[in-house]
């Protein structure tokens, strides 16, 4: 059944380049060029765009230290990068592109990053012995449950984002198909007029509200898990 999966755009050798990868490149280009343009001419007294950048960086720094404590300020760049990528990625559905977060590969890769950071810091802050011992607490019998619980973290983190964005994507494309068929019912087959205004309110919910909220939640949960691992 041809569904709502990402289309295959082209091949490089044997490597399949799907729509997800191409849209991710677009987002990367947007973020890199945006960062280069905004940070080119910094001055002592900020004006114009520099104010916006400073407020953004300040907000992310404060947000990280509020949630994870002052000693974990080093994670602010990671958190900020993921937040910007996810926000732009979820909002790019408004431009008619397919959000890369509606592909489980993207979200799982991001949650694996968080997973690696969690366990690296867990070992770093509680030493290898303490880390291993943590799996046998409170009772040694609970070892399998502890392992399962740790493995469930990246899965639930990635599927939450994926499920929300994909659910929105499917509802939106079903809505567009329904509006096209309603338009052809009233005799406007070539130009589906009904698709013009009605989807706007759904885009506001599924793309803007849900997209920003889900990227916030992904970042927030990452911070909580990493903060836990650093023994905060």
């Amino acid at each position: 059944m041809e569904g709502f999966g990402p289309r295959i755009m082209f091949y490089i050798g044997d490597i399949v380049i799907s729509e997800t990868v191409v849209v991710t490149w677009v987002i990367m280009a947007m973020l890199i060029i945006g960062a280069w343009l905004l940070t080119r001419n910094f001055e002592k007294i900020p004006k114009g765009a520099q104010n916006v950048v400073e407020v953004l960086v300040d907000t992310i720094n404060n947000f990280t230290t509020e949630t994870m404590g002052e000693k974990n300020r080093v994670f602010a760049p990671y958190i900020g990068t993921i937040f910007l990528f996810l926000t732009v990625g979820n909002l790019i559905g408004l431009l008619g592109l397919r959000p890369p977060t509606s592909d489980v590969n993207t979200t799982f890769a991001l949650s694996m990053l968080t997973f690696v950071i969690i366990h690296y810091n867990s070992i770093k802050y509680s030493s290898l012995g303490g880390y291993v011992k943590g799996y046998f607490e409170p009772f040694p019998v609970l070892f399998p449950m502890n392992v399962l619980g740790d493995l469930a973290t990246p899965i639930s983190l990635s599927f939450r984002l994926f499920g929300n964005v994909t659910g929105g994507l499917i509802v939106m494309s079903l809505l567009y198909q329904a509006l096209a068929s309603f338009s052809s019912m009233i005799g406007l087959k070539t130009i589906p007029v009904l698709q013009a205004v009605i989807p706007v309110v759904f885009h506001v919910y599924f793309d803007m509200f849900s997209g920003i909220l889900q990227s916030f939640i992904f970042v927030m949960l990452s911070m909580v898990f990493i903060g836990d691992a650093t023994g905060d």
Partner: protein
Amino acid sequence: MDLVTAKAIVLGASALGAGIGMIAGLGPGIGQGYAAGKGTEAVGRQPEAQADITRTMLLGQAVAETTGIYSLVIALILIFANPLIGLL
């Protein structure tokens, strides 16, 4: 009677399974509503802590949503990437 092939039965049963699986959407609905209700109560009692309460509430709701998302993923797999047809 060649309409009733093994593939048709698997596809039909998968569609039913996807629909039945989405009943799991009940749980997160109730849970999130409960969290939102408690959050509203907390804001009513302590309006100055609204930002903190909203943030904690959204975080809790996102975690409560997990089971519903799992069932959504299973339903999506059953409909769009059915592994059972390959077993025929």
